[in-house]
């Protein structure tokens, strides 16, 4: 990253407790640059999903600031918050749970765009007037046949459902797409395909990613920089190609050894 002005998101001193005593996050600070992918690794329970929930404003931080495009994300309320949500979208871990089983693929894919009639992503500019065509294009962008719009989630495999969830996630052309273990619930054979798709879309659309995973190899493949978390605290952050460097924190080395061993 070159200049400070290039930062999309600046998080400072973020803390969050569940039920007043579970300290899920304490004093976390980092930045994400425009078009950058920041990987997040850490053991189960280290606060990765909590961080995602705060950035999505599904929960409120107890302390700290989140500045997105110069706006204080942590202060937004009501309609202003709803309007701001389109800048940060998510791909959840389990696509089966993230799609309403009663709705068709078409309905699920179009839900975000229907909520923001004034938003026109560049890749939909020529067809913004036609919901059907937009939905078809979104499906083809994630490598699914447009005819599948009329299907229900249960007619799709896990990997296909995750593609639908990704289509939803990119549909508003968000500045930041959070991926919370997007391949963890998928078959090993399709994990690589989904990672490639996410990477291609990032380059194509110039989005920034917060990529959360247990899979260190996947994080290294996806990310420019990596952030290591432990028990709600930031252990260290570094450029992705420095993952195996000798000066890595012992905890990071431990995580790396756990996969290579």
């Amino acid at each position, binding site marked *: 990253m070159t200049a400070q002005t290039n930062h999309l998101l600046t998080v400072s001193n973020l803390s969050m407790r569940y039920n007043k005593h579970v300290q899920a996050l304490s004093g976390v600070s980092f930045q994400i640059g425009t078009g950058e992918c920041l990987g997040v690794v850490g053991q189960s329970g280290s606060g990765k999903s909590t961080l995602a929930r705060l950035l*999505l404003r*599904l929960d409120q931080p107890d302390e700290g600031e989140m500045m997105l495009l110069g706006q204080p994300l942590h202060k937004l309320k009501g309609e202003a918050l*709803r*309007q701001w*949500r*389109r800048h*940060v*979208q*998510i791909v*959840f871990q*389990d696509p089966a*749970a*993230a*799609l*309403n*089983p*009663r*709705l068709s693929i078409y309905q699920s894919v179009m*839900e*975000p765009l229907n*909520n*923001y009639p004034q938003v026109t992503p560049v890749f939909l500019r020529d067809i913004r007037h036609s919901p059907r065509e937009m939905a078809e294009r979104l499906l083809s962008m994630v490598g699914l046949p447009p005819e599948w719009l009329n299907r229900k989630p249960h007619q799709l495999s896990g990997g296909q459902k995750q593609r639908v*969830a990704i289509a*939803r996630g990119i549909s*508003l052309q968000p500045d930041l797409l959070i991926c919370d273990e997007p391949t963890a619930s998928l078959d090993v054979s399709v994990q690589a395909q989904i990672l490639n798709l996410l990477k291609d879309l990032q380059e194509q659309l110039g989005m920034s990613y917060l990529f959360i995973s247990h899979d260190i190899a996947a994080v290294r493949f996806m990310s420019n920089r990596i952030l290591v978390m432990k028990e709600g605290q930031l252990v260290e952050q570094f450029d992705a190609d420095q993952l195996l460097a000798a000066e890595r924190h012992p905890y990071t080395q431990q995580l790396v050894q756990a996969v290579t061993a």
Partner: protein
Amino acid sequence: MAGFINRYAVWIGLGVWLLLAVMTLLGPYLIPHDPLAVDMGKRLQTADATHWLGTDHFGRDVLARLVAGAKITLGLTLVAISAALLIGVPLGLLSGYVGGVVDAAVMRVVDALVAFPDFIIAISIAGILGPDVTHVVIAIVLVKWIGYARVVRGTVMTEKGKAYVLAARVAGTPGVKTIFRHLLPQALPEVLVLAALDMGKIILMISALSYLGLGAQPPMPEWGAMLNDAKMMFQTHPVLMIYPGVAIFLVVLGCNLLGDGLRDRLDARGEW
């Protein structure tokens, strides 16, 4: 037999309701007697070609009264159940979705009401308001909305933390839209089952309260009121109690079969 009833419970239940509807719509054309027409010269006649089920102690045609009673039962039950749904479902949605103070307030009322059996509350309310069939319906609605509020609240509370509801929030879907698009459809199957079962209970309540003299008043041919009317003559003319009794029994059975059948299908398939 039990297997047959289990398998076709929904259809048998629907069949009973269909029969009731047909009786209500076509009955007046098929039976050429006024259910209220008194003819003291024809008191307590046994069944014959003109009066298929005989006449009562005022010489009124029993079948005509049973058919007119079906209309009253059907009408009052539908009014009561609709009102209970219209109060209970929105309150359950609100309570479950908003939580906090709103939820606490609704639940306090619910807890106070569920402490007593439905029937006791209904009798008390009907007793306080005075004997009238409208008062019975009001009493039933006041008791019956609670079930819907609880069922809907429970579903909303478990569903609202699930990923697809969070995903809707992230996608910018406003709260009200999320409730109607994502949460209400999830609660609907259970609501339908409860409504089917409640219809049987409501019919029984209306009849029972009318039998006790709190509900429908003479000469209204409501089934419970007919039972009440006939009870002095039970020794000499027991059929006058048996006909409305059997009618009540069959309709309540139909409602319960419908409710149980729907519940089994719901359990088996999870969604429908």
